[in-house]
């Protein structure tokens, strides 16, 4: 294992240790709230576990059956309009918290996907299809349509800027 990778692995354990320490400190100040925080974390873990399994299964499939050539064709320099369509639709349709998609997106980058397309995918995730009815309920149809339109446009523009700056 490379030294860089070891440092990365260590940073995860350090961060976990710090969060553990925070829980211990908060526990002394407010037992009930700290227990509630722990339960809330467990709820998040339960919620993301199935999606996490799907994401890692997708990574395995990606690594086994999709090679650098096809990634370059669909999400690389030569991807064109189709590449944008894939990432914008993929971003809108993907579920769960953004961070569980990061390992898969990093795999795509390693295989030749453009950074701009990855950034566009992440930004397009700001449209949360299942929650749109609630947004309409609070802010109205016009607001929801206009904001969604600008999010898609913003995702595209951010992707273009990223690709230009590379």
């Amino acid at each position, binding site marked *: 294992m490379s030294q860089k990778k070891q440092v*990365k*692995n260590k*940073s*995860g354990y350090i*961060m*976990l240790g*710090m*969060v*553990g320490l*925070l*829980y211990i400190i*908060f526990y002394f100040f407010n037992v009930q*709230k*700290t227990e509630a*925080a*722990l*339960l*809330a*974390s*467990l709820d*998040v*873990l339960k919620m*993301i576990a199935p999606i996490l399994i799907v994401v*890692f*299964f997708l*990574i*395995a499939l990606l*690594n*086994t059956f999709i090679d650098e050539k096809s990634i370059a064709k669909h999400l690389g320099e030569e991807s064109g309009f189709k590449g944008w369509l894939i990432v914008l639709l993929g971003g809108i349709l993907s579920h769960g918290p*953004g*961070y*569980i998609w*990061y*390992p898969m*997106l*990093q795999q795509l*980058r390693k295989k030749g996907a453009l950074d701009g397309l990855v*950034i566009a995918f*992440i*930004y397009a*995730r*700001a449209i*949360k299809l299942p*929650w749109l009815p*609630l*947004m309409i309920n*609070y*802010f109205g149809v*016009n*607001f929801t349509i*206009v*904001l969604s339109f*600008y*999010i898609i446009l*913003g995702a595209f*523009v*951010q992707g273009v*800027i*990223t690709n230009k*700056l590379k």
Partner: protein
Amino acid sequence: MKKTPHRIKTTLLNTFKSLQAIAPMLLAVIGMVGLFETFITPQMIHSLFDGNIIHDMFLGTTAGAVSVGQPFLSYIIGGELLKEGISLYAVTAFILSFVTLGVIQLPLEFSIFGTRFTIMRNLLSLIFAFIISWASIYTLTLIKGYIS
């Protein structure tokens, strides 16, 4: 070329290893999410706004970036803020940064994507929280005088 069953086995093993590698950071982020959801209340967020559009947009973006939870929470908090007279500019910036920025998950993002990509993505999301909020409300005003 390796045979497919062998390739699947190797890939599954590698996938498991990468899951194992990000597990501590992922658990740390989830732990922080629980703490924030419990200790940072909507009332705390509301008390920060003062009525100035630029100031409130900046605060909305910051509050959204440090808040965590399901996206619907941002709609509920945003809806309540709007009812209490906070500008739609600030509320839109809050909703946007709630789902596109994440201070809590930054260490995880750095460790997976590296420094350059992470800074680039977050900087763009920050700038676009302002641009999209302004553009959305401006468009709505043009469409039908959405806000008076």
